[in-house]
């Protein structure tokens, strides 16, 4: 007869094994700013056509505030990475100099022009084949149907210790592999991306929000556990002529008021994309992602956000534990949409009386 105690022991051991046998603990705390780091790179505008002018800005910070911006060295990357290579750019762009780099200068912010051939380099336009050779494969889009011109940022630390950061500008290139009707529908429905904007940061205590005014230190108690909540613009899911936003389906013909100088929404924007599975133009909405940073204290989550399905909630929150020692805490919040748009803001919190 089977001994029931033995069976129970075996089952528990099995569960223990499965639950605990494989869990490493190396996640770390990316939210803690304990050294100089680039937390984000923003392209303004977020999306541009070949030849357009753009401005890149880095959120480069240190434990005690802003870091030395003159350390930053910017270059456009003008070469595609091998098809199966990992990383955002070819390794040829992760060097101090190289023929695939277009130098832009130094500082926290630089200006550039999107290369004219960016849609061939990084987009759906196939590169010109060599004579006698068959066609060349175009780049694959991301999950939002987007293509990106990368910009490389180098922080010189000395040879192999140099740090590399890659930012992007979403490029407007049209569709690859679609029918004429699909391309027309896409052109009518698609709106270029806008960078998201953080409307506010609030401290939430007992259900009540207290906005943190940028440049002014909000007070928190030592070791206090509180909720931090950020808001951004709530974007309409349907285009309405006269709402100030040139939405999907609206054109200068159908809604001159909104689309003569088209303005997008700075929150979770609706957009259309070409679904490669269904091979059809489909409506979607941006998901939003919030990255939290501070030079002290501890966040419960490193990142929070809203997926596409709950994008109507134009806010996100995180739990934060203040440090036990009194002092000023610097806080940075980066808001990203999934079409490459970036917004960020910095705040101060005063711990203790």
């Amino acid at each position, binding site marked *: 007869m089977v001994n029931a105690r033995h069976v129970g022991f075996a089952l528990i051991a099995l569960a223990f094994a499965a639950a605990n046998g494989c869990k490493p603990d190396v996640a770390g705390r990316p939210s803690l700013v304990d050294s100089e780091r680039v937390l*984000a790179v923003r392209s303004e505008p977020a999306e541009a056509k070949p030849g357009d002018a753009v401005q890149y800005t880095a959120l480069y910070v240190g434990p005690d505030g802003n870091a030395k911006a003159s350390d930053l060295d910017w270059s456009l990357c003008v070469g595609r990475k091998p098809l199966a290579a*990992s990383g955002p750019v070819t390794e040829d762009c*992760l060097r101090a100099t190289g023929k695939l780099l277009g130098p832009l200068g130094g500082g926290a912010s630089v200006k550039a022009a999107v290369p004219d051939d960016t849609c061939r380099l990084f987009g759906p336009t196939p590169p010109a084949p060599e004579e006698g050779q068959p066609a060349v494969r175009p780049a694959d889009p991301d999950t939002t149907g987007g293509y990106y011109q990368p910009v490389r940022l180098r922080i010189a630390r000395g040879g192999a210790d140099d740090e590399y950061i890659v930012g992007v500008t979403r490029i407007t290139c049209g569709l690859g*592999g679609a029918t004429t009707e*699909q391309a027309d529908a896409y052109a009518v429905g698609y709106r270029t991306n806008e960078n998201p904007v953080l409307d506010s940061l609030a401290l939430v205590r007992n259900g009540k929000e207290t906005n943190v005014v940028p440049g002014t230190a909000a007070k928190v108690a030592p070791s206090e556990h509180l909720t931090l909540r950020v808001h951004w613009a709530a974007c309409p899911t349907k285009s309405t002529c006269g709402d100030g936003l040139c939405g999907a389906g609206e054109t200068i013909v159908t809604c001159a008021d909104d689309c003569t100088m088209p303005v997008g929404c700075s929150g979770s924007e609706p957009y259309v994309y070409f679904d490669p599975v269904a091979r059809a133009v489909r409506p979607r909405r941006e998901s939003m992602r919030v990255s939290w940073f501070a030079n002290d204290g501890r966040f419960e989550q490193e990142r929070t956000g809203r997926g*596409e399905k709950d994008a109507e909630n134009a806010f996100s929150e*995180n739990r934060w534990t203040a440090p036990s020692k009194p002092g000023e805490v610097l806080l940075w919040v980066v808001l990203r949409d999934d079409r490459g748009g970036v917004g960020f803001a910095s705040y101060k919190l005063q711990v203790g009386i």
Partner: protein
Amino acid sequence: MMLRIRIAAFAAALLLTGAAQTFAQDAPAGAAGASPSAAPQRVVIPPKLVHFEQAEYPEAERANPRDVSVVLTIGIGVDGKVIELSVAQSGGAAFDAAATEAAKKFEFEPAQVDGVKVAVRIQYRYEFTLAAPEPVPVKTTADFDGVVRDRKTHGPLAGVTVDVDGVASVTDSAGQFHFADLPPGTHTVTLSGDNFTPTGTQETLLAGQRYDATYEVETNPEGIAPGEQVDFEMVIVDVPLAKSMAATTISSEQGSRVAGTGGDVIKVVENLPGVARASVGSSALVVWGAAGEDTRVYVDDVHIPRLYHEGGFRSVIHSDLVKSVELEPGGYGAPHGRGLGGLVTVGMKPLVNDGYHGSIALDAIDAAASVRGSVGDQFRFAGAVRRSHLDWVLKQATSEDVGAIVPIPKYWDSQLRAAWVPHEDESVEVGALLSSDQISRSVLAADPNETKSDGKDSTFDRFYLRYEKHMGDGGVVTATPFIGFDHSRVSTLFGAVPASLTNDATLYGLRAVWSGKPDEHIGVSAGIDVEVQDSTLRRNGSITTPPREGDLHVFGAPPSDQVNADKWNTTNAGLAPFVQADFSLLDGKVHVIPGLRAEPSIVRASRRVPAQADIPALGTMNESTAIEPRLAARWAITERIAVRAAFGIYHQPPLAEDLSAVFGNPRLGESKAVHYLAGTTLKITDAVSLEVTSFLSRQSQLATRSPLPTPLEAQALIQGGLGRAYGGQVLLRHDMTSHFFGWLSYSLVRSERTDGGSNQFRVFDFDQTHVFTALASYDLGAGFELGARFRYSTGFPRTPVVQVVYDSRRDSYEPIFGAHNSIRIPAFYEFDARASKRWKLAKDSELELYLDVQNVTNHANPEEIVYNYNFSKKSYITGLPLLPVLGAKLTW
């Protein structure tokens, strides 16, 4: 006093004949007799030859054959012994010597005179004749000899009744039995005796062939009262067929007792030489450094896509139906192909008419049942089913969502077999092999980009018809048509980044083989091996998800979010006639086995370029004919020492998954491998043997990634990869003796590949340079048995992260890699143990309770490298800790 006696009557008694030599002995010339006129008349009885020794025709004279006579004078003592010997008439020195040597051994009834034994001298004529060999009639029957031994002691068993289709023979004191002139075909052989349960098997005899079998039976163990019978399995030790050159075969009886296998016979393959250890949760079978998909798996003649269920906990065939499992890591013969790696053959137990039997088994992982029996004499059946419940068990045992951390597989399998045996030399079997696996898990996170889910479904069904006929001339014909349906779907969703690959395939196959023996020294197998696979596939996601061999990536990292999609279908058809001969030379000491396989094949893909707007798809077809010579040889230098070598060329069609115009290359053709191996076998004792094998496998035309940043359209994969694997393996094996069996296995294998466009070899992703396994099982008596297994293996190679780049768009750090596969996960070692107890419940029924403990020392074995968010720290995912699994099995 000596009498000279003429003994004319001698001739008839001494006339003997042989097949090649004839000796005629006339009455001795000049023999003296008593005078008929003498008085009083004496009663004289001449000596009588009672033992004749045949003289050999001298070897030196065979080149000049002739009839020669030698007359000998032989003195015979009163005891009948030869006491004097001389040549009276020479036939030549060689003939004289041969005749003299033989006559020394004559024995007589002494001569008598008036009732008194007396010594006499006679003359004896030896006549040497080297007769021309008479034509040997083609023998249309078979002889069947063998020996029955005790499985534990290896000692002969006397008094065992061996019955072949109603004709019985009883083993002698040496355990030997003999049947002469049996009709060719399949015969039911049953063994019965006082001390064990009668059992049976089937043997196939070929005309003109002598079949030597050794059966080992398990006599009643201690604690079993006389007269009671216990169930046991008969192990056929010596199969008198030419074996492949590097095969390792494990019987179901041994395989089910190996620690760490949970009683699963087929799981023992992981412990055989040449096989890399699969990582936890993996069901991949890496043999001699070949990729998992390069090793073909057959159940008898039916190709199946996998050997193990997901997670690697169980095989897909119930052990009760398995007779043996055989691994040929390379150099196999012409009957098989389409794989660059090894060959695993699961042999199913023959369906016999021996009553109804079955089993029920239960442990923490799954539950299983089997049954077999017969209806009348002609209809036989067997079936088995198994279903996992590990997911349910974990829910009962812990509140943690274990499945969110470790994917917990859900699976089931079933095998059904029915046979009609109208005659013992003819059978028709229909069967089904069914298997299904499912894995899914979801991990929620506050960050929508960190929300993950993945799932994997895979099923395969095989339905086959097997016809077997033993011809009157000793030939055997088998034909196995089958149809199969495979489905697999792998899907992941990492944040908003999807990836999925679905493959629905229909497989049509036929293997038809004739085996015969046109000559006493030549065996021939010829046949045809057909497979047609129609696949419909859909894939979307990143081109690097899932990663393929050679891709640089780190475990658990977010996939690339550059995505695409494709739908395509493929047809892969091959028709391979093959022939293989077995030349038996030098009294069977040398076997030379040449073979040839030719396989015209087509590979069709429905789309030669990615979908473009509404342009109709144009397909592509690739035709080729692979010629695959094979050659193997084995030389038994002595009864205990043999050497062997083999060579073969192998081709493998491209995977349907790789024929995508978006993710692969629809124009891919076949890959190629050449195997070379050599080795030796030393039988140290009757129970202990040592096998040493070295090998080299060269692969070419492998599908690899295009290295270009802008590859040509529909050429994400290119066919230029090279591979090589080389090394050796040692197997020191102790067969089952009275209480013990076990083996030590060590493999030294180096496997390397090149990446597309490069001739620079780097280490294969699944290379395990050193793999050592030691296992043993000991029968304590009274139904108790203990087993242990120790495994050591080199860790898998990995590529170091030497730098990082911060991707601001995705807010993630991405690795920059160093030299490809230049570091390794730390070595794996683990000690497993098994204890079991069997209780006899009633006649033919038994309960076994076992505790199988993996990782007894609770050693944390690194299985994979993981990094922190910016790759500044690394750690390891470790394998399963101490894992006891208690199980029970009831058989009847």
